[in-house]
């Protein structure tokens, strides 16, 4: 039995435009997705902002009713038997919200321990164990309003694990954290699967997905466009080459000209300090450096380099399709 199953999962939202002449508009956030997560697996849902990652997670954790399709967690239907699902899952999201700022970190955990029915005798040792795990020991009696973003994030992780859930949903848990804080949270996530937990992680950090996930589904505009191990996804663009050209002030027209070259599979522009870097993915055997430079005629060009594709390139290629 899969730990998480989604079949034809769809979710639309109604929104309105205009003030006097209000018009209802329907937005399709998730357009009928299917995937399965095996028990003990760390599964990544990777996609840009607005791709439908959070909506998918919210349907799975019973906060949203799907417009169509079904979803089961540990074989339990998330709509028909929401309360049973809630007992067996943990949910952690990124950012500073979701904390009672006027309570201490310890009181926050105590409240949620009660909320999740952790037996009274187990609460104290469990909270202390989790404070140790997330590195908040010694600061637990301070009010949460004085915590840094990283500390609040770690408090979220501890809260999500209080009732020792079998399946854990992590929605962009490292967003906005400094590198050290993010590394600590990633180490905690890695330890969850070692403890036999099933984890569904959403992120838009490629290296995070690459480092942590057993399998990844790439979601864009509400649809899953690729699924497999990080190695599988890299292999999708693995036989090509990536050309990176440092440019200064490249316009959209130029980018479109490069995109139109035969053998180019994807083009992206990244901002790096003073310069921009044109990242061009090419198909196997294509040598397009001269053709690319031809398209850039008139622009200031800096360093040119060639490299092997990474998971990020695979992701950009998939999302750009």
């Amino acid at each position, binding site marked *: 039995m899969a730990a998480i199953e989604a079949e034809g999962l769809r979710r639309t939202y109604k929104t309105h435009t205009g003030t006097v002449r209000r018009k209802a508009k329907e937005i399709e956030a998730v357009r009928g997705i299917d995937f399965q997560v095996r028990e003990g697996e760390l599964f990544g849902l990777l996609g840009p902002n607005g791709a439908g990652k959070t909506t998918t997670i919210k349907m799975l*954790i019973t906060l949203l009713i799907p417009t169509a399709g079904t979803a089961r967690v540990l074989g339990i239907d998330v709509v028909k038997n929401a309360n049973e699902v809630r007992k067996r899952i943990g949910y952690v999201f990124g950012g500073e919200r*979701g904390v009672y700022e006027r309570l201490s970190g310890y009181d926050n955990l105590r409240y949620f321990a*009660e909320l*999740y*029915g952790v037996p009274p005798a187990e609460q104290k040792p469990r909270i202390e164990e989790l404070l140790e795990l997330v590195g908040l020991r010694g600061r637990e009696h301070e009010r949460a309003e004085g915590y840094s973003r990283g500390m609040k994030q770690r408090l979220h992780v501890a809260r999500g694990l209080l009732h020792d859930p079998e399946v854990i949903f992590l929605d962009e848990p490292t967003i906005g954290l400094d590198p050290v804080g993010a590394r600590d949270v990633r180490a905690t996530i890695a330890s969850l699967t070692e403890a036999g937990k099933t984890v569904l992680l959403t992120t838009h950090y490629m290296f995070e997905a690459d480092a942590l996930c057993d399998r990844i589904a790439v979601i864009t505009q509400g649809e899953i466009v690729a699924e497999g191990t990080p190695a599988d996804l890299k292999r999708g663009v693995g036989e090509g080459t990536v050309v990176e050209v440092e440019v200064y002030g490249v316009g959209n027209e130029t980018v479109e000209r490069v995109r139109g070259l035969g053998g180019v599979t994807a083009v992206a522009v990244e901002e790096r300090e003073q310069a921009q870097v044109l990242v061009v993915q090419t198909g196997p055997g294509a040598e397009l450096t001269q053709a690319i430079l031809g398209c850039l005629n008139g622009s200031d060009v800096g360093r040119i380099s060639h490299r092997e594709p990474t998971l990020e390139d695979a992701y950009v290629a998939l999302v750009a399709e």
Partner: protein
Amino acid sequence: MRSLRFVFVSWKLQFKMIMRSPFDGIGNVIYPLFFATTAFFVFRAGSSPRTLIYASLGAAVMGMWSSVSTSAGSAMQRDRWWGTLELLVAAPRHFSLILFPSTLGLATVGIYNLTATLLWGRFAFGIPLTIEHPLLFGFSVVGTVLAFAGLGLLFAVSFVRFRAAWVLGNFFEYPVWLICGFLVPLSLLPDWVRPISWVLAPTWGMNAIRESALGGTPLPDLLLCLGLGAVYVAFAVLVTNRVLYDARARGSLSLT
């Protein structure tokens, strides 16, 4: 037993949060003074000490009611702003049980408001503070707090479904002062208002508090107050699942 423990621990933590809010703190200092002053100036013309006690008790319950009606809505609104509402909904407890300690915490602040208003009246304006049946007075106050918490729960459930409903809390604050006879006897109100007063637990809670303080028979009023409080709770529990399903279907839980 576990549910009772949850209500107790949760009430304690909610109370802690309310006590730590500077905004609520200032309100709790100013409101009783305001209510006691109003009662004194409105009723001093009567010059009878009994009338002044009557008014002082009314003003004290006004404070209790204001604490519940305005704060129940803003408490839910705060949960939306803080992003904790979704976490509460995603927890495996009945949602009305999660909300009840919160409204109970607010009603408990009401006890402080009641005491502070009576003390302000006593020391600032010399309104005598005599309680004929102290034990029954205590029961009446606790019964009124519980009924207010029940009504607050009903409000809070509607605030989950309707984001703007917290405004209703403010809207209900003043009419209840009048309709439930906090300051003016119900006999002075038009006949058509009375059925509305009868279905509102604050009417009976107010009567029970006055009867026990001034020397009467508070028990029937207290029982009616508690009975109506229980009806509010039962109704809130019944509609909670429907309201939550609707909010999940609309996707409005995460909206602020």
